[in-house]
Every structure is written in structure tokens, then in C-alpha cells.
């Protein structure tokens, strides 16, 4: 058991070395979220207390999913992915390893955005420790979601297009930049069905001490459960990816 965690760690380190410098991870994972946050700063209204957790959530989400996109779709295409299937480890170990590399990338993407909000906003985060925990949970859930999603894409040339087709609507519908509270009624159920909504609400509570529609106990629990479910789903998909 412990052995499998350690090996998942080796997979993550290997992935990180291999893919962090690739254009796909850099542009969509690191540069985009930061530039996006900067853009809000210069706009009228600026980077508000409400927006800050959304920006952090976005960075974690884009950073981690970009890494999985690279490390899985690319490896599957050139055949390196199957090397992992030859080691004496379980499918869970592989999906955990892939999620961990995404996790590292997600955290790195969030650092510049987090620093920006800390510098720009007058109020410090409401609950620092909870914020750290929720950042970890959000990154974890985004990572396993990204790993799962990566197995549905075959062609590395299309991966960022497909990922953005999923990520951009989520960005607008998940309480990240547009509050659920001002959405038209018919969009609310969709927002409540998207995992990113829960992650963002969890972060928002830790950062501002308030939430829009989902109470922290629920948003945190749901985020964690989503993370675990996608991890298990990813293992299952890896198993089924065999011809």
C-alpha cells in the first residue's frame, strides 16, 4: 500500500520533469490563468474580494488539467504510456501518479495568482489554514478530473481544443467570474451540476468567509468526493483502455 504511494510519487516526478516545459502546459497551465487575473485587475471594478478565489480556482483548474492533458494524451499517442502498465503496480497507483503530477502543476500555476491577490486586495484571507486545505482539495479534484478527461482524447493535436471546450463553459458557469446568484434561473441547475462550482465555493468561503449558494460543509465534502470518484473512474478507464 505505502509502496504504491511511493511509486505514484515516482510517476509524478517523472511526468513533471518530462512535461512541465512543454508549450501546452506552459501556455494554458501557467500563463493563461495569470494573464486572465491581470486582465481583471486593469478592468473597471478590478480584482474584487469576490473574484479572487475564483481566479485561484481557475489557475488550479487550468494548471492541473493542462498537465494531465500533456502527460496522458501525449504519452498514449507515442506509446510510452504502456510502459506504466508493465510495472508491477495497480491501476490506482498509475492514476494516482498521473493525478499527482497534475497536482504539482496546479499548485505552481496558482502561486503567481495567489501572490497577486494577496498584494492587490486590502483584506487578507479569512481562514488561512482552511484556504490551504481547500486549495489542496480543489487541486486534487481538478487533477483527477483532468486525468479522467484525458483518456477520452486520442489526438495530441486536438487535446487543448477539447479541453478548452470543456474548461471554458465551466469557467463561465461555475461561479468563477459570474456569480451564480445573478445567473438566469435555467442556468443554475447546470452550475450546480459542475464540479468546479463546488471547488470555487469552498475556496471562496476560506478566502472571504462567505459563500454564494453552497455552504462550506457541502462544498468541501462534495469537492473531496468528486476527487476520489474521478480517481477511481480514471483507474477504471486505464484498465479499459487495453485493446
Amino acid at each position, binding site marked *: 500500500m505505502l509502496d504504491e504511494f511511493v511509486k505514484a510519487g515516482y510517476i509524478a516526478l517523472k511526468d513533471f520533469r518530462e512535461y512541465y516545459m512543454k508549450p501546452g502546459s506552459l501556455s494554458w497551465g501557467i500563463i493563461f490563468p495569470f494573464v486572465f487575473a491581470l486582465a481583471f485587475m486593469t478592468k473597471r471594478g478590478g480584482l474584487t474580494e469576490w473574484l479572487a478565489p475564483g481566479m485561484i480556482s481557475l489557475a488550479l483548474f487550468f494548471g492541473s488539467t493542462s498537465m494531465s492533458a500533456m502527460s496522458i494524451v501525449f504519452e498514449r499517442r507515442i506509446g510510452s504510456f504502456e*510502459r506504466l502498465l508493465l510495472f*508491477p503496480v495497480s491501476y490506482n497507483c498509475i492514476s494516482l501518479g498521473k493525478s499527482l503530477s497534475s497536482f504539482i502543476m496546479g499548485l505552481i500555476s496558482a502561486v503567481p495568482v495567489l501572490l497577486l491577490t494577496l498584494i492587490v486586495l486590502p483584506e487578507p484571507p479569512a481562514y488561512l489554514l482552511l484556504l490551504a486545505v481547500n486549495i489542496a482539495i480543489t487541486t486534487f479534484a481538478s487533477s483527477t478530473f483532468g486525468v479522467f478527461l484525458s483518456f477520452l482524447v486520442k489526438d495530441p493535436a486536438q487535446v487543448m481544443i477539447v479541453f478548452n471546450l470543456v474548461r471554458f463553459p465551466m469557467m463561465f458557469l461555475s461561479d468563477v467570474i459570474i456569480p451564480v446568484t445573478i445567473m438566469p434561473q435555467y442556468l443554475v441547475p447546470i452550475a450546480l451540476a459542475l464540479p468546479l462550482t463546488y471547488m470555487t465555493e469552498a475556496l471562496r468561503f476560506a478566502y472571504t468567509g462567505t459563500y454564494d449558494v453552497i455552504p462550506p460543509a457541502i462544498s468541501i465534502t462534495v469537492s473531496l468526493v468528486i476527487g476520489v470518484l474521478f480517481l477511481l473512474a480514471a483507474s477504471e478507464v486505464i484498465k479499459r483502455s487495453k485493446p
Partner: protein
Amino acid sequence: MLLLTAQSIMMGEDLKCLRTEERKMGNECIISVEGLTKKYGELMAVDHISFCVRRNEIFGFLGPNGAGKTTTVRMLVGLTRITEGKAWIEGYDVVRDYKRVRSVIGVVPDISNLYSELTCLQNLIFSAAMYGVPREKRLKRAEELLKFFGLWRMRDFKFKNLSRGLKRRLTIAAALTHNPKVLFLDEPTSGLDIMSRRMVWEKILELNRSGVTIFLTSHNVYEAFHISDRIGVINKGKIVALGTPAELSKRFSAKEVIEVAFYPKNPRESELIKQLNGALSVKLRKDHLEIVASDPTSVIEGLILYAKQNNLELSTLNLRGADAEELFLRIVGEQ
């Protein structure tokens, strides 16, 4: 001009006899396969094959492209789902005990698929770590392998910067970090130049001498006959011949080929065959006739007699055993 040559197909025979004597050959199966089958939709990629690979031998799995070699290897190592049938490696069921199977086998896929941004050393250490080699032994094992495969100077080169032959060697090395008992090699030398190819063969033989059982696939007849102790020939998903190289050549190349040309003019095929005892077929090639003979001596006597009687000269007379490739075509063509 009279030219008489007989070519043996067993170019690597001397080398192999030596090795077989050196080792105590057990008859125990380290890999057993029973009725193994893979269907892709309607396509029977592998069709109920059964065979045994003995401990310490080099088993060559020979067949044309698309015969089902890769699919067979992939089923044995757990990369492709088995449609039907069973297989055991070291007594472990390859499906049920897949984790234990993986720790006793090393697998070299048909492409060199190591991680391009990692150096040679990093690739080997990662592999060792994933196979559960204790931390303090990983570096030593990786260094041993780099030296063994002549990659020591390249240890800090990234995989992507290696030549094709070096990539192949490192991919083989990465399959050996945990000292496996069985090494699967899928087309180990395909696409390599002569020098790299020889180097890989040497290393395979050396590994085998140190006690590793080798299962290798190839579409190259010379390669299979050159380094295997036993060969299974697969075609269209079925095993069509199985035996030592010597057995296979004996069984399939009883017939010999005579090439002959007459001066000033070659006779008609149909006319010549009537005059010859022991000729199975006569075919006109570009500038000579090719005669497949069951009794070459009487055919050659017949040819000399025919030339005398018809005032012709024999400008070429060439006797050769069927070479490995013809043998292979014959085996594969028999069904």
C-alpha cells in the same frame, strides 16, 4: 563455365552448438500457452495457438507482418485482453496473477518508447524504482546496465538525443533493471543498421548465457535462425511450424534448386522436363532455367547429357540449397 555451389542455411550454427553444450537444458516450460486467441471484431489476429518456451532457451517467434506476433506478446505480458485461452509464465496465470508475472518478466516493445526528456541514467533509475529495486541498489544496477550496453559515455544524454540503435539498446536495458527471468523482445532489431543489429544480437546471446530466457519476435528469417534455439513460425494467427532451426530446415528443404543456362539458346521448359529424372518443376527465369529437384545428382547428369545430344553448351550450372527465406516462404505458403 561450370559453377557448383551449395549454400548452407545454417550460418550461425557453430555459435549455437557451443552455447547449447555449455548449458544444462531443462525441458521444463517457463512459458506455456494453451489455445490463446485474440479477435478484433471479425478479425482473428491470433487463432488458438499453443506452445511452450523452455527455461533458458531463446525462442524465436517468426512470421510475416501482420501474422499476430505483437498481439501474442501483448497478451502474454498483459497489455492486450485475451479473447480465449490461457497462458502461464513461471507457473503464474498471466491474467489472474498479472502483478507477479510482471515482476519476473522484462518487456521490450516493438517501438523504443522511453521518456524523451529524461537522460539514459534517469530512465533506468525510474524503471528500477517502479520495479521495486531497493533504493540503494538502483544506481549500481543502472550503471551496470549502461556499461553492459555500451552506453556509459551517453549516461547523461537525453533519450531523445540518442540514435535509433542506442535508443533500442537503452529500451532493452530498461526492461532488465529488475533482473527478470524472462525477457520479451518484440522485433528487437527491426530498422537498425548492420552494426547495431549485431550488437543487439550479441547482447541477447550474452543475456541468455547468464540465464535469462528469451522470447523474441522477428519477421527476419536470418535473425530467427541465427540466434534462436527453437523457432515457432506464425502465419495469419496460426502456428504453422515449430522446432529447432536444424529441424525446420530438414523438414522443409528436402528439395534443392538448380539454376542452369544453355548456350546459344535455352530449350523450352516443357521439353526439358521430359528429359530429366528427378526434376519436380522447371521454370524459365530471365536468362536461365530454375529446376526444383528431388534428386539433384540425376538431374545434373540429365542436363549434361541433354546438352551433348543437342549440341548445346552449359553456360551456367548452379546448385543451391533453398535458403532460409525460401524455406520460410515454403513453410508459410504450405497452407
